């Protein structure tokens, strides 16, 4: 296929392609920076990187409309950024500064930006799957046509809440899309060691009357296309989907995990199939000039630098917010 042919037959469109590339790169450079800042003790607590998994966040977010909702896990930087939340706000939260998304009260595992439809990051495995059902139920009940997307890992498929939620979603035919990011590992344990089937999500789909779907989670186009299909189904009132995206995290599970549990050569193999490398090449195939790509690279790097500087300059959350927003009246009074 020549570039010209490729462009003519492109179901995705060159603008969306630029967007998908940029989105992945934003996540990549942001997270690399987060890691550096972690080593400098400027990112506090814990942080869970999605290096290598960017195509999933970018592909799904690229297919979402304004008003669509996303629910993710502690490994949620990517999904938060992909929906358009400002880097500074996300990094501020990781650095536990007053400019953070939740002013440091939530921390990196609970990134939330309701105005962007980022309905929270949940740090207890499995909980957000039923919660996502509820958000989708609201849409169905009120006759709204938004879709709820719920991201989680391979390891999450073995906890009870997964099972309850997927069955529930199917029985009520809810407009929710469950996305399993199969990066082959729980924290340090290979998913295959603790799962009765090879594909922890897809091989369970039939148990909920759902189609078996596996996609290359490192190919943003594949992800984007499957997202569109699933969203169309959901919006048409045809119920939930369960999608397993095959991917790999380049980094450790969290913080300074060196990933010693990986077999030799595994990471290297996956680095060959790096989503950003792949997509950069793809852009070329669709006629985007190297200079144009390089300009995106530069712009994103600058964006990350600016966010970093802003966060370094930001203050700490003030003591005055410590006891606010426990209850809806803004306060925390449990007694009169």
């Amino acid at each position: 296929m020549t570039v010209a042919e490729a462009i003519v037959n492109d179901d995705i469109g060159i603008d969306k392609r630029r967007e998908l590339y940029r989105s992945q790169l934003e996540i990549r450079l942001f997270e690399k920076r987060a890691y550096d800042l972690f080593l400098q003790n400027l990112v506090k607590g814990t942080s869970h990187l999605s290096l290598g998994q960017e195509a999933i966040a970018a592909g799904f977010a690229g297919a979402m409309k304004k008003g669509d909702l996303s629910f993710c896990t502690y490994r949620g930087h990517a999904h938060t950024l992909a929906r358009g939340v400002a880097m500074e706000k996300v990094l501020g939260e990781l650095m536990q500064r007053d400019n953070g998304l939740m002013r440091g009260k939530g921390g990196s595992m609970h990134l939330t930006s309701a105005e962007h439809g980022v309905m929270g990051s949940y740090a207890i495995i499995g909980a957000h799957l039923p919660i996502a059902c509820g958000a989708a139920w609201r849409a169905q009940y009120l006759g709204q046509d938004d879709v709820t997307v719920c991201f989680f890992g391979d390891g999450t498929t073995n906890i009870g809440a997964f099972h309850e939620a997927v069955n529930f979603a199917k029985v009520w035919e809810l407009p929710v899309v469950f996305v399993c990011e199969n990066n082959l590992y729980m924290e340090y344990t290979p998913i295959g060691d603790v799962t009765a089937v090879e594909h922890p999500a897809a091989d369970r789909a039939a148990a909920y009357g759902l189609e078996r779907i596996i996609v290359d989670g490192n190919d943003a186009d594949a992800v984007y296309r499957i997202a569109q299909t699933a969203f169309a189904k959901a919006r048409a009132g045809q119920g939930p989907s369960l999608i397993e995206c095959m991917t790999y995290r380049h980094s450790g599970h969290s913080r300074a995990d060196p990933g010693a549990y990986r077999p030799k050569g595994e990471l290297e193999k996956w680095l060959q199939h790096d989503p950003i490398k792949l997509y950069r090449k793809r852009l070329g195939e669709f006629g985007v000039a190297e200079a144009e790509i390089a300009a995106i690279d530069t712009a994103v790097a600058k964006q990350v630098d600016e966010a970093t500087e802003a966060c370094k300059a930001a203050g700490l959350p003030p003591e005055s917010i410590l006891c606010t927003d426990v209850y809806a009246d803004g306060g925390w009074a449990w007694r009169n």
Partner: protein
Amino acid sequence: MAELSYREAVARGIAQEMERDERVVFLGEDVAKAGGVFKATVGLYDRFGPKRVRDTPISEQAILGAAMGAAMTGLRPIAEIMFSDFLAVCYDFIANEFPKVRYMTNGQLGCPLVVRTGNGAGSRFGAQHSQSVENWSMMIPGLKVVAPSSPADVVGLLAAAVRDPNPVIFYEHKSLYAVKGEVPDGEILDTLGTAKILRPGRDATIVALALMVPRALEAAEILARDHGIDCEVIDVRSLVPLDTQTILGSIVKTGRLFTVEENPRLLGWGAEIASIAADETFYDLDGPIVRITTPHIPLPAADNLEDIVLPTPARIVEKIVRAMN
């Protein structure tokens, strides 16, 4: 004014709120077509239809999770957990999700919902279907916790719970479902966080909750009649927010505090009230604070054993008489 059972009051309260607000939806196991295992929600399905009153699978996590997601995005769900003991199978939502989402998101999201649940002993159901577990939610910051003792309170407090923008755990006592009481006509709306002095008294304050309220009242009558001890009986009604003004005010007046708790001893709600009183009314107290509770054991099934194990009016009387002498 109509005489309603506590069970009927539940359905009336839910109906009142569903009528008022389209956003109120109701889900749970066997709650819709069958009207609930305690028959406390009979008629709602026929009246409000399958879209608003929904039967679920046996998936308590899905029930509470769905309620939370709906609440976060604009509905006002009421979820039923059939027996309060089953809160244990979905406790992550009670302890970690509902109460923390507002705080963690710095107020971006809220969780306005009600979990109704059948609580308490007296049905000879044994250790896994009879517990009083208000403390399972009282100890979690971010929840409100209510436990009414009369049909009128059921309607008014349930309405207040539904309208409250926070997650509220609403404990209905299984052994009160059949109890009847006068309930005013028309809309009823009570206030969370208000205790009620049901019997004024000078000599001692008895604080009770749910099924223990009628028992405390009965004990107070016996104490007055047979022992010349005039007790003030307070129905706590709402554990969070806790009406410490009413409770401490009474202690200041009477100088003595007794709690009557159905829960096993350790960390029953009375422990908290006792600890507040021992701090803030220490110099008003004329004698020890005594907690009258179920012993710290799982509950037996056998009727004769179950009857002994919960605080009875006789036990309350005996403990108070002994402490006051």
